[in-house]
């Protein structure tokens, strides 16, 4: 039973494993006030809390950039690894191979993933390492004060006036092409859509890619930018959520077609996301390609769960690695016997 104090403050209400939401928080954010990334952080906290995952059993990963700072802002009870720029997927791969018991979450940005880290992004998907890979995508390099990224849309303009002449990379389409078993896109301000998508990704038994459009309020939130609040408000279209049921906690998806939703941001900005009605089967990979390509050609920002394959096999299973975390193996298990060495020596005579 919740104490009167807990009833008064939802942050102090314990979940099924007796951990309060407050305990899922991290240190205070140092990002710009109103940054879309902070909203994502809040959704991540809610997702872990709702799924009753003990932070002790979570490993957090990130690379370099504004987005990559955020794992410090959630789950202070979990070990985190802030890798070098673009190399987070390899670190997460090693960690996941070494310990099959952890729940892995990674936060990266469009620069960290789609430019310097593109190779590693591709290969973590190819290996199907169990991990929720969130890309906080703002189409701009914020930390170095506003350069185009590889996901910047063609024709998009920078605050200082230059126009992007190159095609942007659609990370969801790429993930689909690589055989990713969980591909989704959302908008940082869309709590109702984000939360179930994060929960689904955390429950997926392989690499789950989630491209989150998260406008940079400082360097990419002006007329001409295709990832500003105003642009996204006008162009964001959500495909119908299917009732994806993760392995241990049902996700209630309350998603009414054809309605509008006003989302308020920490800095007080308000945006309206429009959800379109669509009959969509997210287990059909070809359908996912189709809707994404169609949306791209129309210049629409499609959001939702595009594809899910709940039966993928993670790499550790394919590679036949022991279930026990490697560090917990006994010396007898990892050091062959004296007789084994004698046998090898005999073969070399």
């Amino acid at each position, binding site marked *: 039973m919740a104490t009167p104090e807990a009833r008064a403050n939802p942050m102090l209400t314990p979940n099924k494993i007796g951990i309060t939401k407050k305990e899922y928080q991290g240190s205070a954010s140092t990002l710009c006030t109103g940054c879309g990334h902070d909203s994502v952080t809040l959704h991540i906290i809610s997702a872990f809390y709702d799924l009753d995952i003990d932070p*002790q*059993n979570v*490993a957090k*990963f990130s690379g370099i950039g504004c987005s990559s700072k955020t*794992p*410090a802002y959630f789950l*202070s*009870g*979990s*070990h*985190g*690894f*802030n*890798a*070098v720029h673009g*190399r987070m*997927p*390899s*670190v*997460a*791969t*090693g*960690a*996941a*191979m*070494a*310990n099959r*018991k*952890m729940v892995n979450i990674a936060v990266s940005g469009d620069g960290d993933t789609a430019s310097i880290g593109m*190779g*590693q992004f*591709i*290969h973590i998907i190819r*290996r199907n390492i169990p991990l929720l890979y969130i890309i906080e995508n703002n189409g701009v390099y914020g930390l170095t004060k506003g350069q185009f990224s590889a996901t910047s849309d063609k024709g998009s303009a920078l605050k200082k006036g230059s126009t992007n002449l190159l095609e942007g990379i659609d990370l969801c389409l790429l993930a689909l092409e690589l055989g990713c078993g969980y591909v989704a896109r959302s908008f940082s301000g869309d709590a109702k859509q984000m939360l179930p998508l994060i929960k689904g990704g955390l429950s997926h038994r392989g690499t789950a890619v989630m491209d989150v459009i998260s406008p940079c309020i400082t360097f990419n939130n002006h007329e001409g930018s295709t990832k500003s609040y105003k642009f996204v408000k006008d162009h964001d279209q959500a495909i119908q959520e299917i009732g994806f049921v993760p392995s241990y906690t049902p996700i209630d998806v309350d998603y009414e077609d054809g309605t509008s939703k006003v989302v308020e941001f920490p800095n007080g900005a308000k945006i309206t996301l429009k959800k379109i009605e669509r009959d969509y089967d997210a287990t059909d990979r070809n359908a996912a390609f189709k809707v994404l390509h169609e949306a791209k050609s129309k210049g629409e920002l499609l959001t939702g769960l595009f594809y899910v394959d709940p039966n993928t096999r993670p790499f*550790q299973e394919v*590679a*036949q*690695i*022991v*279930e026990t*975390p*490697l*560090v917990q*193996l006994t*010396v007898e*298990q*990892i*050091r*062959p016997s*004296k007789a*084994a*060495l*004698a046998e*090898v*020596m005999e*073969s*070399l*005579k």
Partner: protein
Amino acid sequence: MKYMNSPYKVNDFSIHVGTVNGSGSQSSNNILMRSIFRMGVPVSGKNLFPSNIQGLPTWFTIRVNRDGWSARRVKTEILVCMNDATYVDDVKALEPESIVIHHDHMNVSALRKDVISISVPFSKIIAEACPDPRLRKLAVNMVYVGVLADLLKITDEAIELAMEQQFKSKHKVLELNRAAIKAGRDFVKANYADLKFPYKIEALNKTDGKILIEGNAACALGAVFSGCTFVSWYPITPSTSLIDYFSDYAEKYRIDPQNGLKTFAVVQAEDEMAAIGMVMGASWMGARSMTATSGPGLSLMAEFTGFGYFAEVPAVIFDVQRVGPSTGLPTRTAQSDLLFAAFLSHGDTKNIIILPGTVDECFSMTADAFDLAERFQTPVFVLSDLDLGMNFWMSDPFPYIDRPLDRGKILTDADTEGLAKFERYGDPDGDGIPFRTLPGIKDRRGVFFTRGSGHNTKAAYTEKGPDYVQAMDRLKKKFETARNHVPKPLKSGSGTNEIGIIAFGSSHDAVRESIHFLKADAGLDVDYLRIRAFPFHEDILNFIKSHNRIFVVDQNRDAQMLSLLKLEPALASEISKMESILHYDGFPIDAPKISEAILKSLKERKAA
């Protein structure tokens, strides 16, 4: 000098075989080498191969030496010519009176009158001995084994043992090769019965109980037998076989009998940056982790090495050195990554380096490297090279290492008292080495965020000057602590001689041989110290101080070991007495080169 004129015709000569890459000559050369070894005569085998899969020339040199000298020997007494493309140059390079065994279509007599030509109709012989034309190309190499076996008096028994080792119980293969060898023997008996062949193998007992192994296999065994649980790598010559051997041995000896699952993971990465990244992640999770690479791969690992140094994540990195810079000579040997590895990464960085000089040390010092990496929570480099790693060396069997694995300073939930005072980057013991915790710990006092950015003792982000200075000074202290924990140098000689030789890594056998003959031929006594790790143990500094002249043997252009020694503040007043012996043509260094350099320098000094 005596050894240059090869006084021994029994059990002291070299066989040089020129073949075509991918023609199957590796098996025949192995059988030839191992059959001599089986007769109790020490041998070493060096493979000189191109960066190519099939078609380009390749050579294999077998040095037979009853005293066990196994370094490279430049001179060749017996040449086998199986490659049309190279035989002219190979024959021209011979010394007078060398033996040349060659295809009958090669006109060796026209090239050189002063060599002994043994013309063999290889194609005709193999056509008769091998009914299946598809297999003739492979089996023809076995004919020269038969020819040499008969000429050198290698017994059938020794050949048979070597073949069984090579082909295990593949009966058809054994039969085919037996027939080819017999055909070679029969040819010699029928055509060269009267030839007084000047070289001979006589049975000895000097290989009893010994093994013949490549350094890469020895390093791999060291990793399998010291509990390495995670490997990630990207294929690159000459380190690839290290991982191949690891996988082979681990698949055999590291399967959990309870469930048939692997107690290790090997991940072939997309590049070397990912390989070392995976090692970082696995090691952070507590797994004993390693990667293996060579020059270009090492360049790519610079970024994560700095991360591992600064964030204090253990890793073992094998660098099987080849000739650089850039792609360089990918299939030739060098010791030219020393300085790069020592300081790999931007920013102030110093890395622990292990320098095995024998195959035995490739095994035992791999275990040391894992212990040191976890004890000091830092990347540890094992610098081998192509000569040590990919060539065959004779050794005593490796002793089993049963000391406890040193997993270093790790706090767990059971260590409540330690956790109460936990500072990830503190220095509670005054040795510069902090305690770490692993992901999965329950006690929140033990949870921290690993980052390559500035951090204070509690692992929190900081850009404050004093915090940074404190972190860097502690890392320096930790490196100083390592000085007396790394493998000590090995010394030989009375210690009272004027002259000291310093060498490291695969130069060892050439130096040993040089020292022997400097004494035997020139009456010169020298002391020898072999460096086996960086940072430098104090014994190294004392050795230099206690000798009047020091020769430092470096298989690189820029005197890298000498340069590293010169950076030691304690040696500031000793620099003038140190000079280099340099070798960097891509081939392994040989003993005469060292001896000649020393004698020349002494003569010049005397004249001056």
